[in-house]
């Protein structure tokens, strides 16, 4: 069953700027999809539109098969858990546990005690239950906001830039947490590496849908990403160079975990060792960017 469906959605801001144009997508139960795009691509607008805070100019949004409009937005929003980019915008209560209980109480759900305990446990913040949220670090506030959403037990999680503003450790922990969650998820982000860890599929958005596919398919479409102002992750670039040097790579890794996995395969295949190469750049030969390798598998120049 389709948990979420958008058909030819179009949206303009008050000043007439087109924010979304002909956006269509569908999420089945259990799908984890990333919306990737540069700043101003319409990612957050799209999430707010799905949550019923904005009304599309044309096209339709269906949640659980029901058409979303301003009359039923409050009702249909009960199936959605929207995590805001800034956790301070959605933390209201004086203690962490009170804040986690806030959503379930408003929705008049049963077993609030159990839901709060689950929300806190699933986000790893049980020890913070009695703490004051405004005194926590940014990363912890993100977890509190996520725990509040989890306690509402939504069918679809809508996450707006979940990794932005986090330090490396908090980012890694949050990625691990989202990866372990078995829920339908739509993540708006420009953090391609994080998205690659969490989702199965991605949609590249730049006002309209540019392309979609698996994360591995997307990083091979380097030009598409660069055209809209996004960059292939450094780890993918590195493995592109390895591939050009003769170490054949089965698929371009997008995240560090995938890179380790791929590197292990290459090392195993190469007899448990890798040759190091001196890599020189020469920008003078015929105006072309030439890479020369003093020792490499292919023993030849790679011209870009």
């Amino acid at each position, binding site marked *: 069953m389709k948990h979420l469906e958008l058909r030819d959605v179009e949206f303009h801001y008050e000043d007439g700027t087109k924010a979304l144009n002909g956006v269509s997508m569908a999420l089945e139960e259990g799908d984890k999809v990333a919306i990737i795009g540069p700043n101003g691509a319409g990612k957050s607008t799209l999430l707010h539109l799905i949550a019923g805070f904005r009304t599309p100019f044309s096209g339709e949004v269906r949640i659980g098969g029901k058409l979303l409009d301003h009359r039923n937005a409050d009702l249909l929003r009960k199936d959605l858990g929207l995590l805001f980019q800034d956790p301070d915008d959605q933390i209201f209560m004086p*203690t962490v546990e009170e804040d986690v209980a806030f959503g379930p109480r408003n929705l008049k759900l049963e077993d609030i005690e159990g839901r709060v305990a689950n929300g806190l446990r699933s986000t790893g913040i049980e020890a913070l239950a009695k703490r004051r949220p405004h005194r926590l670090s940014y990363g912890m506030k993100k977890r509190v906001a996520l725990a509040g959403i989890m306690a509402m037990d939504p069918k679809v999680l809508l996450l707006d830039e979940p990794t932005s503003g986090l330090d490396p450790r908090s980012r890694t922990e949050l990625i691990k947490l989202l990866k372990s969650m078995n829920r339908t998820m739509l993540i708006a982000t420009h953090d391609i590496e994080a998205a690659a860890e969490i989702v199965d599929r991605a949609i590249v958005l730049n006002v309209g849908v540019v392309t979609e596919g698996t994360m591995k398919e997307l990083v091979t479409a380097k030009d598409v990403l660069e055209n809209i102002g996004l960059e292939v992750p450094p780890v993918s670039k590195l493995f592109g160079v390895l591939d050009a040097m003769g170490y054949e790579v089965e698929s371009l890794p997008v995240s560090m975990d995938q890179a380790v996995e791929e590197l292990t395969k290459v090392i195993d295949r190469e007899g448990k060792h890798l040759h190091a190469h001196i890599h020189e750049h020469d920008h003078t030969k015929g105006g072309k960017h030439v890479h020369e390798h003093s020792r490499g598998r292919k023993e030849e120049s790679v011209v870009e």
Partner: protein
Amino acid sequence: MRIEHMSSRRFVVKPLDEHAECSRFGGLDARAKLVGVLVFVVASALLTRQDIVFVSLAMSLVLVGASALPIRHVAKLYLGALPFILLASLSFFLFSGVEKGVTMWARASACVLALIVLASSTQTFELFSGLRRLRVPAMLTTLLMLSHKYIVVLSDELSRMTLARRARAFSGGRNLLDRYALKVISFTAGMVLVRSSERADRVYEGLKAKGFEKDLTGWRTSVLGVSDIAFVMAFVAASAVLLVLQTEVIA
């Protein structure tokens, strides 16, 4: 509630209830504090005899001492309210004589000090939640809570804008004739309002995203204990004594 303290070197945003946990009355039920203090304030406001008004002021000072709140904190808040107290007393000083003016000042000060103890000894959310539990309409308490949240948002935005202004070497604003500085400050004020309004919209969407409809109350609710009842009784007794002295029943 937050109060902003500007100094030449730093900009600090401090919550009004920052000492609530260390106050001796911090652990009491908000409802007991609200009822006790409001009874005392109403009784004090009804007093007209100068000597009795001073007894009421002395009681408020005892309350400040008993609360164990930092004196500097109470003094700062009192000084913040003083211009309004003096303004209220001014007409009495001018048209009814010094004695009436001093009585007015003492009466207002007694009420303000008791309210400062109430506000500083109770978490702001608990205070509004307590009002709701005392059957004040949800519309009113939610409005109070959201207004409080908006003041916090406004204060956050103001502190960010002020820091950003300073980071770009702006140091004007001390001279009323400095037209450039006044222009910058008026632009800042406009930006603060626009940004606060945008943020308030996001906060509202945050509330709606969590199924909020109209009632913002706490989940864990306390039960009135012996100390809460004793607190209320003490205030009711003190208020009764003041009113009896006022009506000269004892005399």
